[in-house]
């Protein structure tokens, strides 16, 4: 299969995405994809063009079993009750009643067991559109994704800050503004608190970050 000429690549990619490239030809085409970036680009371009047709299909409600199967498959523990609903918790609490005096001395025993899952936040713009998502990774870094390109002057950049009620904001790092994602390493020794606010500011690239009074955007930060 010759994919050297741009017009040939384009024609094959088009029929591949349309679905009319079939059988052995389709298999050969797929084998070529990993080694040919411009062929992959042609496919991506045609997907963007043609798959807009996907919404033109009539809607048919799927059988309810599909969602039930999906839940079982993706979230095997999905039906686990939250900690305050679990029998063991209340049973534990009843036992704890007996040892109330002990408990009074060790209040940390009453803190809920930690649930798996990362802290997440979405930073929204004035139209409620999501600009960035922020997630805490297990090794205490922050994974930030920029969902919409931000119009930032070339000599400026967006900074992310963590603000807790009784302390000045702490700078966490530079936010991607080009639709990409990045991982921010938290300042040494810093553990994000369970609650607080995330602030976004825009500042000159070549000046040291200055403590903001007012953020451009802010959102509540909450550990799940």
């Amino acid at each position: 299969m010759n994919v050297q000429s741009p017009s040939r690549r384009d024609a094959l990619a088009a029929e591949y995405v349309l679905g009319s490239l079939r059988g052995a030809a389709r298999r050969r085409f797929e084998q070529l994809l990993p080694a040919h970036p411009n062929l992959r680009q042609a496919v991506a371009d045609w997907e963007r063009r043609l798959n807009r047709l996907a919404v033109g299909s009539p809607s048919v409600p799927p059988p309810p079993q599909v969602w039930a199967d999906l839940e079982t498959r993706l979230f095997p523990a999905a039906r686990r009750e939250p900690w305050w609903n679990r029998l063991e918790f209340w049973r534990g609490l009843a036992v704890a009643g007996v040892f109330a005096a002990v408990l009074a001395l060790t209040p940390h025993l009453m803190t809920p067991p930690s649930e798996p899952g990362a802290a997440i936040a979405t930073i929204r713009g004035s139209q409620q559109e999501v600009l960035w998502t922020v997630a805490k990774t297990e090794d205490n870094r922050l994974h930030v994704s920029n969902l919409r390109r931000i119009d930032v002057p070339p000599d400026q950049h967006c900074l992310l800050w963590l603000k807790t009620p009784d302390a000045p904001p702490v700078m966490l790092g530079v936010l991607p503004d080009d639709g990409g994602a990045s991982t921010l390493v938290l300042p040494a020794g810093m553990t994000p608190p369970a609650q607080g606010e995330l602030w976004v500011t825009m500042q000159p690239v070549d000046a040291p970050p200055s403590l903001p009074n007012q953020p451009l955007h802010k959102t509540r930060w909450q550990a799940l």
Partner: protein
Amino acid sequence: MAPQESLADLLARCALHDRRAFEDLYRQASPTLYGLLLRLVRDRELAADLLQEGFVRIWQRASEYRPGLGQPFTWMGTIVRHLAIDRLRRVDHRQRGELDDAGWEQLADAGPGPEERLQTEHSEATVARCLEILDPEPRQAVLLAYYEGLTHDAIARRMDRPLGTVKAWVRRSLQRLKICLGEP
């Protein structure tokens, strides 16, 4: 009632493993994607299997979605269509034929045609407009390939036209669509 969150925002939250966002996404997108699959494979059970597989991938790959890849439906449509065409490659679904054309029409509730449905979505109106510039027969050939997963051969039989004619229709129509839809 809270305004419906956009599919792009829901996908962003899915990337962060937000199950509730995934449920909302499923509720909003699954009827269209199931309709698309059903039309391609003409078998309710197979379409349901593919829908499940498709949403597993959507969940796992949500972080790969970028607005630059097109509308969320474009991206999700790409995922499920890949699965369906892959399956069609192995099974000649026409021979299984759970749903013939009449059965399909009935299930799909004989609503508006694809072009009329496309008109209703602002962002998709360009596609509808571009389909209109094609002559009726070449347009039908393209739509049969896209929506029904038919090969050139099968389109030729369905439309009772020579294979060479059908191939030329599809090839030229795609080029006309490309010019009309703009770069890329």
